[in-house]
Structure formats: structure tokens, C-alpha cells
């Protein structure tokens, strides 16, 4: 098992979430940057769907009661294992009783820690993820909390020493599929959306990334009946400042969605920090 010495600013247990319950009001949840969790899991021989820990701005300290294979991926941080510096995207052995210290990320926002065998908290609706919107799943990490290990399927051999670290651009250009409600907005709004740039606001979280930039004006009055929301949806509240929905987004919403971020670019958006920027680029499906 793992004892949480310090959770840092915000850390949760995450796997690939609980898709399939949207019609019952349940957010999909799961790792905000799923490819990084998958990579960390592969590096320790876990199934990609095993539960790991998602840190926000690093800062986590964990004590391991038993020895364990560990890998970190996502936002790169200085990491110490039992007093020894270790690298990102590379499996390493944590000795019994050792403490893992994750520093602040050099770039990016969310770092993923996978342990061989997975984090074994009780699943809820088929997932061990903390859903910050609905409260399903385990509570966020706090000092003194104990996390059981296990729960993942039998692991494969550890076969890779180090994987390439992906880039974490501070002003990426993100692909957007227009619609389903782009016709609710003025032509100027559509031009402004693809002009940008937008700044990431501090109120951003696992539910959504709040943006500040050109106001997106509506072409029509009235309210949209509530409708299903997709991951990456760019929802525009009446103030005209868009929100990009991340893993814990509500399954239905009542503000029009001007476009949806391409699925491959959602993890990049999830790694942006408050004060970073992004630009949108229109793509066709």
C-alpha cells in the first residue's frame, strides 16, 4: 500500500473513467490526459486502463510500504525515489519504505504515476476514478490517506527502459470540429474563435478549461434546451467566454457548443496551465 505524505495542490486516483452512464447523469471522468496515464501504465507492464495517480502542479509525496515498480508520465517534474533522482517516462524500482517526491512540473500541468499492479481502491460503476463534479469514486488524495495496491489484471513484463517525452507547448494550436451549435453565433464570433489567442483562466479544473479572449456573440436570442455534451465541447455561456470540457464535464448542458476540440488535442488542452494560451483551428471531419 501507499501512504500519502503530501497530496500537493490537488491529486486524485484516475483510470480511464466510466463512459456509458451519461444517460443516467454520470460524467465519464478518468485521466484528463489519458495518453499519459496509458503510457505510464505500459511502462510498468500494466493494462492501460489500470488506476494511477493524477497530480496537478506536482508536489506529491508518497511512502511505499512495500517495494514497487513505478513510472511517471505527463508533465515532467524533478522526481526523487528514496532520495535518488529518477527520470520521467522510465520505470524504476521503489524500495520498501521508500518515499517518492514529485516536484513542480517544468512544463505542463498534470503528471501521472503508475504502479505495477495498479491502485486498488474500490471501483464505483466500473471505475476507480475520482469524479470531481459528482463526487463518485474515491475522495481526492489527502495527507495520511492510505491507497491499496492491486486491482489491475496480471501485469506484462516490463519491457522498455525509457520512452520519449512528448512536448507541452504553452500556446498550442488546437483542432476544432465546428458545431453542433455554431449557427447560434455571429459570423464575427466564428472568425474570432479561430483568430484567438485565448488565455487559460485560473478557474480551470478537471471539469473544464475556462478561456479568456475574444467574446463570442450570439446570433439568436433564447435558451437552448439541455442536450448531451461531448468530451472537448467548447461551450459558450452568455458572457461569451468559452469553456473547453474535460473529463469530468457534465453529460448534459444548456449552453450552445460552438465546436468540439479534436479528440487527439484534448490531452494537450488538459496540460495547459493558467496563464498559458491556445489558438483554435477549424478542421473538417
Amino acid at each position: 500500500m501507499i501512504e500519502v505524505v503530501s497530496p500537493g495542490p490537488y491529486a486524485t486516483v484516475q483510470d480511464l473513467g466510466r463512459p456509458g452512464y451519461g444517460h443516467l447523469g454520470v460524467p465519464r471522468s478518468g485521466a484528463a490526459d489519458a495518453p499519459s496515464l496509458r503510457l505510464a501504465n505500459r511502462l510498468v507492464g500494466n493494462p492501460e486502463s489500470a488506476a494511477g495517480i493524477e497530480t496537478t502542479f506536482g508536489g506529491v509525496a508518497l511512502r511505499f510500504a512495500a517495494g514497487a515498480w513505478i513510472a511517471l508520465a505527463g508533465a515532467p517534474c524533478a522526481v526523487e525515489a528514496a532520495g535518488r533522482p529518477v527520470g520521467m517516462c522510465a520505470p524504476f524500482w521503489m524500495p520498501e519504505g521508500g518515499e517518492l517526491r514529485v516536484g513542480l512540473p517544468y512544463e505542463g500541468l498534470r503528471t501521472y504515476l503508475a504502479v505495477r499492479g495498479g491502485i486498488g481502491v474500490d471501483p464505483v460503476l466500473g471505475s476507480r476514478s475520482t469524479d470531481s463534479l459528482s463526487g463518485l469514486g474515491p475522495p481526492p488524495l489527502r495527507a495520511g490517506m492510505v491507497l491499496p495496491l492491486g486491482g489491475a489484471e496480471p501485469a506484462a513484463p516490463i519491457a522498455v527502459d525509457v520512452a520519449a517525452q512528448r512536448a507541452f507547448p504553452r500556446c498550442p494550436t488546437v483542432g476544432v470540429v465546428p458545431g453542433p451549435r455554431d449557427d447560434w453565433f455571429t459570423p464575427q464570433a466564428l472568425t474570432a474563435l479561430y483568430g484567438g489567442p485565448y488565455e487559460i483562466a485560473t478557474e480551470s479544473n478537471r471539469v473544464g478549461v475556462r478561456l479568456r479572449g475574444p467574446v463570442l456573440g450570439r446570433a439568436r436570442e433564447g435558451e437552448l434546451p439541455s442536450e448531451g455534451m461531448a468530451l472537448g465541447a467548447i461551450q459558450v455561456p452568455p458572457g461569451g467566454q468559452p469553456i473547453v470540457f474535460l473529463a469530468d464535464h457534465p453529460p448534459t448542458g444548456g449552453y450552445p457548443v460552438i465546436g468540439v476540440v479534436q479528440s487527439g488535442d484534448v490531452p494537450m488542452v488538459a496540460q495547459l496551465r493558467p496563464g498559458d494560451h491556445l489558438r483554435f483551428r477549424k478542421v473538417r471531419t
Partner: protein
Amino acid sequence: MTGDLGVTGPRTTPGRAAGTGTAIRPAGEHALLVETGSLEVAHRLDALLRSDRPAGVEEIVPGPETVLVVAPGADRSGLEALLSSLLRTASAPAMSPASPAKDAGGATAAGGTVEIPVVYDGEDLRSVADLSGLAVDEVVARHAASEFVVGWLGFAPGFAYLAGLDPALHVPRLDVPRTSVPAGSVAIAGPYSAVYPSASPGGWRLLGRTDLRVWDVRADPPALLPPGTRVRFTP
């Protein structure tokens, strides 16, 4: 998958099937938003999709006038053609000859009737009576006489928007939401009623409470009131 490609318009300017007020719109690379024009058609389409789930479909999320279909693994144009075909079936009046034309939202084959026992002692009975110009007894009687159908779920896991509330009881939400509403609270707001599935903040007006659990993560399915279920409240 089969279907009539000709019915569906271009993806960026939604195609409208003549006379039906329906369309299929893109919602990113992996999802399509089907406009059904009504809750009744949304429920029928939802039921058709659930009874024979197309390959690759991960989520089917009905709303008051839409169904969102999330299908990361599906062939997109094939799915769009299939949805177009199913939408025409769901829109055809012959789809449910047994249900009255004016029913609250078209409960589907999947939805039975759930009776919810209520103790009508809610904190907002008085304010609802004042807003509606009815006596408290009459508020209770009209709520219990309303024939509800679960429209869709949202706001919180298991929170079902129940359509079919007696129009005399259509009252606005509280100006200042409560910071915590107990699980099992039976409430109304606008044209809807609901049972709070778990304790949460909430701005709906409380009429009473029930011991019936409408949400249990250990149950399968976890929600007692999926879309299309008919609901009656019994004092």
C-alpha cells in the same frame, strides 16, 4: 448498417428532413447530435438504439429534443445513415399505436411505471401554494395526480427531470438555492419535478420526501428512473 444517405444533409449545415424539424449535427469527430424535435421522439430513438446498439457506440444521451450518440469506434458515415433511418422510424406516428398522442413525453417500451411514496411535508409547500394561488392540499393533490415520465437525467448522477407536472404548479426556482438538499427530497421547478438522488445544493422547491432510493451505485442499473420511465407520486 443500412440507411438512406439521401435524407441526411451536409454535416456542417444540418440536414433537415422535410417537415419533421429534425437534423443530425456533428459533435466532434466521434459524436453525432440527433435533433428529434420532441422528447417523445428522443425517447423512441433512445429505445431503438439501446435495443440494438450499433457497433462502437459508447454513450447514448437523450435530452428534451435531442439524442447525443458518442461512438469513438464507429464508421461515421455509416452511423449517420443509420441514425437518419432510425430517426424516421422514431418520428413515424405508427411507432407507438398504443400510446396516447398527447402523453407527457412518450414512455417507451423500456419504461415501466414506478410509484414513489411521498410524505408531503416539504419546506416550500407554502411558497408553492402562494405562487400558484392554490391551497396546500390542492398543491399536493395536483402533484400526486400528475402523470410523469422521465425526460432525461442531468445535474447529478440519477437526477431525473420528470416531465408532466400539472401546469398550475409551474413555479420558478428559489432565488437563492439551498446549500444542501437532503437525498430523497421531492421537488418541483418550472415544468419539472424531481427526486434528489443524493444530498446536494439545489434551488428547486421542496414538496416532500421519499424513502425510495432512486440512485444506488451498487445496483445494476444504478438509477431507478432511466429516461422513458413513467412515474407517479403517492401520498
